[in-house]
């Protein structure tokens, strides 16, 4: 089979030297690779040909255009059906989108996300350091924490925290195994819906972010720590100034995944009848029966939040890529500015 193709090739290339166009002929078959085998019969010195006056014709990609057309058609069809199908009830969506109750729910969602996100990652950072420490106790406590909170459903955790008063009627602060109490309170007054929601989301988030942060720290070369230690840089400073900024590059993409997940994850607190965005629209559509349009209201808000977070993610990642890439790529804003600057400058140059 391979010999057959070789014969076919040599037959095809035999006519090339005979075609009376030596320079272009060698260039063409030279690119093929096997053309040199046919040529050694004529080892005359090659003439360098000047191509500088030739016009370059761009390669054509007809299938790319076909693909583009098909996809464009699909996008158009979806947009058309969204706009013209009356059952989407865009009027209802618009009416509720900025309604006071929905906006209140949105604020609660943002509050829950921000608080449990910050607390979750702070606790996660501590858990990650514990896991990487030399103390076997700290390592196993951290491991067990992640193990428990990652293996139980968030829904169960949430209900458990909310019903903590059933398990422990009072919560008190004192010296263990004695009767000394500094502070004592009914569990039900301490654990409100909000507290249960924050507690559940935070602890769950901490378990996941601990692993993300640990992964980021492990991705930093051991030589960095060694160099810092050899320079006498203290341990805390080594973590915060040398290791963490480098670990951030590995941490950030996954961390933003988590935060975006958390934004939507907050909707789970509807089981506590806590009036965040999702619970609010549920209450409304149970009353008005406009289920889909109201779910759309919530969906659009989640999309808005995610979009804003994505912009933050872009700039924060860019900040931490300093030194990791030789030259930072332009931001979309800088690209736009450059585009307008160069296009505005053209007429000026002509005037000169």
């Amino acid at each position, binding site marked *: 089979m391979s010999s057959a193709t070789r014969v076919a090739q040599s037959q095809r290339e035999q006519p090339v030297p005979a075609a009376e166009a030596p320079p272009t002929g060698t260039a063409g078959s030279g690119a093929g690779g096997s053309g040199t085998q046919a040529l050694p019969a004529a080892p005359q010195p090659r003439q360098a040909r000047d191509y500088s006056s030739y016009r370059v014709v761009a390669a054509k990609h007809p299938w790319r255009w076909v693909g583009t057309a098909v996809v464009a058609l699909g996008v158009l069809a979806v947009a058309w059906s969204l706009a013209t199908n009356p059952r989407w009830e865009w009027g209802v969506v618009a009416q509720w989108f900025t309604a006071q109750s929905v906006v209140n729910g949105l604020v609660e969602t943002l509050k829950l996300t921000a608080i449990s996100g910050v607390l979750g990652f702070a606790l996660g950072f501590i858990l990650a350091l514990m896991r990487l420490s030399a103390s076997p106790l700290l390592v196993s406590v951290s491991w067990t924490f992640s193990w428990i909170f990652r293996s139980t459903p968030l829904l169960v955790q949430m209900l458990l925290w909310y019903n903590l008063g059933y398990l422990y009627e009072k919560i008190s602060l004192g010296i263990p195994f004695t009767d000394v109490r500094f502070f004592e309170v009914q569990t039900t007054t301490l654990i409100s819906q909000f507290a249960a929601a924050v507690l559940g989301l935070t602890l769950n988030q901490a378990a996941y972010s601990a692993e993300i942060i640990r992964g980021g720290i492990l991705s930093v*070369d051991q*030589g*960095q720590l*060694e*160099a*810092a*230690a*050899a*320079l*006498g*840089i*203290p*341990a805390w*400073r080594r973590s915060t*100034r*040398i290791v963490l*900024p*480098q670990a951030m590059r590995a941490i950030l993409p996954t961390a933003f995944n988590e935060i975006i997940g958390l934004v939507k994850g907050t909707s789970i607190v509807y089981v506590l009848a806590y009036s965040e965005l999702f619970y609010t629209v549920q209450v409304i559509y149970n009353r008005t029966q406009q289920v889909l349009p109201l779910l759309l209201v919530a969906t659009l808000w989640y999309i808005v939040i995610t979009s804003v977070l994505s912009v933050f993610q872009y700039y924060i990642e860019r900040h*931490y890529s*300093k*030194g*990791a*890439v*030789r*030259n930072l790529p332009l931001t979309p804003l800088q690209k736009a500015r450059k585009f307008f600057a160069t296009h505005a400058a053209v007429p000026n140059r002509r005037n000169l």
Partner: protein
Amino acid sequence: MTATLTAPTATRGLVEITGVRKSFGPTEVLKGVSLTVEPGGVAVIVGPSGSGKSTLLRTINHLEKVDGGHITIDGKLVGYAVRGDRLHELREKEILKQRTEIGMVFQNFNLFPHLTALENVAEAPVVAQGRSKAEARRRGLELLDRVGLKDRAGAYPRQLSGGQQQRVAIARALALDPKILLFDEPTSALDPELVNEVLDVIRELATSGTTLIIVTHEMGFARDVADTVVFMDQGQVVEQGTPQDIFGNPREPRTRSFLSKVLEPAFNI
């Protein structure tokens, strides 16, 4: 070399290594190594890979804890404090303080990639020696100038060539005004044409009165710059002496066999 011997300021930086042992798991990489480097001296350690050269270097600034024997710098024990008839392990903070007197340059540079050349050089003097930021920057620029990189002060390590990175790393080690500088195969990760720019910087340091201990495979450089050449093999110092002795007239058969392998190609150039 003669300049080193006559360096008048070399009153600090005496390194005495006595019977140092170190094992990693079942393999003993240092089997009782003893070595003395005079203040301002330049000791070059050569030997086949796996002979324990790098490990020995890393015990001097306590990056590796020794299993036996001891190391003193200007008579002070590294990593331990003597109280009565006991050796107390130093705490992290005290070890870090000792390390500021010992600069180290690594084979893979280990510059901090997210900091500029100047930030790399100016970091340790501020956090480890409590100098002011302005002073550390001024001194950092001076040192970058000394290694010929003043105009690249704002560059990140990845924007520099290997040779430039290693020169920044040397400036970073010098920023703490160490008594002793340790070089762990400083040119092994470099392209051949970049080796000399780094060796030139080290050569200049050899006359500065700082004690230098250098692990290298560059035999020509070792002959040039060393006042003591130490040949190590299998965790032991086999032979040590002046470059003339070791390269011209090695006594031990192991030294002779090693040198015959590494010197030939160097002379063919």
